[in-house]
């Protein structure tokens, strides 16, 4: 317990600050590398220092392709990606841990086999391909949902109607991104539960005659949830990469698609700005996960009064 609390204290704020500084360092390395490429046909090496100076005041430079400040473009597109990635994470977490509990309730049973096989398949699917299949089914064949974009152009919706329209456009991208991660969380949850069933504390709880249902939820599942929550934080970085692909498939104008555009248009200041902003986001998410962790795991206490 003491170790747990201590580790969290050691890990959470210290790591965040260190990684913050270090991530700027890492990005600076990239800046240097990019500048070497540029330096041949573009301005002097002082650009790098200027960029760092600008960064300190929150200035990410100007986009070459849009001819506007990078920060403004990124902030404009960010909410869409946050909505997409956030809903996908919620879906993945709910679906993954829920089905994981079902699968892990009776390891080796028919339901477990079915769910595990499905998760294995889903886990091996390229997200853009899954997206295309879903689009083919729900947008083209069944015509339930719009194929691409973020809202119906020229529909002139406002207020709630507009919000609903946007939500309808986000269903397929969220489903695509969410399903891929749901498979991961399901496998993790199940594996954790298999481990927990074997542990001494579950055996002890069983011996005390705690009903199976209560045992399953309060003891086994709760313990298996911890690695899943940890994974939530670890996956936040790959989630940004995932949204690059999924936003491109569904033509969602978020920062992921912006990154792909920046690459094809060789807009390095923009790409760099996106890298920095997403690294900051990842740090923020990890901080949130650390806080969440403290709520779930009774062993960890924030500001630990550990003895």
């Amino acid at each position: 317990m003491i170790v747990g609390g201590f580790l969290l204290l050691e890990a959470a704020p210290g790591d965040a600050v260190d990684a913050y500084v270090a991530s700027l360092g890492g990005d600076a390395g990239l800046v240097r590398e990019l500048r070497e490429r540029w330096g041949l046909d573009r301005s002097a090496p002082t650009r790098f220092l200027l960029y760092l100076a600008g960064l300190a005041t929150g200035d990410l430079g100007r986009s070459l392709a849009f001819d506007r400040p990078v920060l403004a473009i990124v902030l404009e597109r960010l909410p869409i990606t946050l909505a997409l990635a956030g809903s996908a994470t919620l879906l993945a977490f709910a679906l993954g841990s829920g089905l994981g509990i079902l699968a892990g309730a009776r390891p080796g049973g028919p339901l477990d086999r079915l769910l595990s096989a499905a998760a294995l398949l889903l886990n091996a699917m390229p997200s853009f391909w899954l997206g295309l299949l879903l689009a083919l089914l729900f947008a083209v064949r069944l015509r339930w949902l719009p194929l691409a974009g973020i809202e119906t152009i020229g529909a002139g919706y406002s207020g709630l109607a507009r919000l609903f329209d946007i939500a309808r456009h986000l269903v397929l991208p969220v489903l695509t991104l969410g399903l891929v991660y749901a498979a991961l969380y399901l496998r993790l949850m199940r594996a954790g539960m298999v481990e927990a069933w074997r542990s001494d504390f579950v055996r002890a709880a069983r011996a005390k005659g705690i009903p199976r249902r209560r045992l399953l939820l309060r003891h086994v599942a709760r313990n298996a949830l911890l690695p899943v929550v940890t994974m939530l934080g670890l996956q936040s970085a790959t989630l940004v990469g995932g949204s690059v692909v999924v936003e491109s498939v569904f033509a969602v104008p978020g920062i992921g698609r912006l990154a792909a555009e920046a690459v094809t248009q060789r807009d390095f200041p923009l790409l760099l700005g996106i890298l920095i902003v997403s690294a900051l986001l990842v740090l923020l998410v990890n901080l949130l996960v650390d806080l969440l962790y403290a709520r779930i795991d009774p062993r960890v206490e924030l500001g630990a009064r550990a003895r």
Partner: protein
Amino acid sequence: MTDLLLRFARDRAALLAACVLAGLALAAASAQLLWPLDPEGVGGPPLLRPLVDPAHPLGTDRLGRDVLARLLHGARLSLTVAFAAALAASVLGSAVGLAAGLAGGRLDELLMRITDAFQTVPGFLLALAFVSVFGPDARSVVLAIAASAWTGPARLVRAEIASLAGRDFVLAAIVAGLPRREIALRVLLPNALPPVVAYAATSVASAVLIESALSFLGLADPNRASWGAMIAEGRAVLVSEPWLSILPGLALLLTVLAVNLVGEGLNEALAPRRARP
């Protein structure tokens, strides 16, 4: 070693997956012999459906190129890039992990902060940046994937070294007066490697996926058939001719599934003490 193979072979799914993977690799390596059609050449009428013309069993694409030939050559690209990237990431990561674990102190701190930094930057964005700077050929794709994948092995090796450091056989080597270099390379490294091997399998799987995603976004050599690019090309006629996107996707699915199962099998075989689910 035989022990390891025996344990691996006991896992039927992993064994089957290993055979599938070997078959894929063989087919990819002998693509010209197996199916001599040119993957880039126009060999037939455009948009021929699969299972219609025996000359093009899987049909042709919008330009009349043979889909089977393109799939086989795509397998070659995909597998080479993925294995090369996983190997590069494992070697680089192990080197960093070994250095950090052995040196301790300032160097350890520095190396681990760099590792942190790389883990905060989304790997796929880093790969995008890499490819956009160095151009979209296979070699830069390998570098791009390795640049974001080396952090895993680095952490693993460092952690292993830390846990091995106090063990009796390491202490024995020190007492026996072995030079530091010998201890590092002959005693510590081989014992720290098993988890890296198991991890390498998962990084092959993710490398296959990253390569396909990059080529799907049009960031691959346009003159070489690749699965991701085939799916992207098929999008233009997705509604009328969906198989053009579906077939390469199935190839990707099969490959990643096989790699994952082999990886799981390796993991179990390398760590037999861990409970089997």
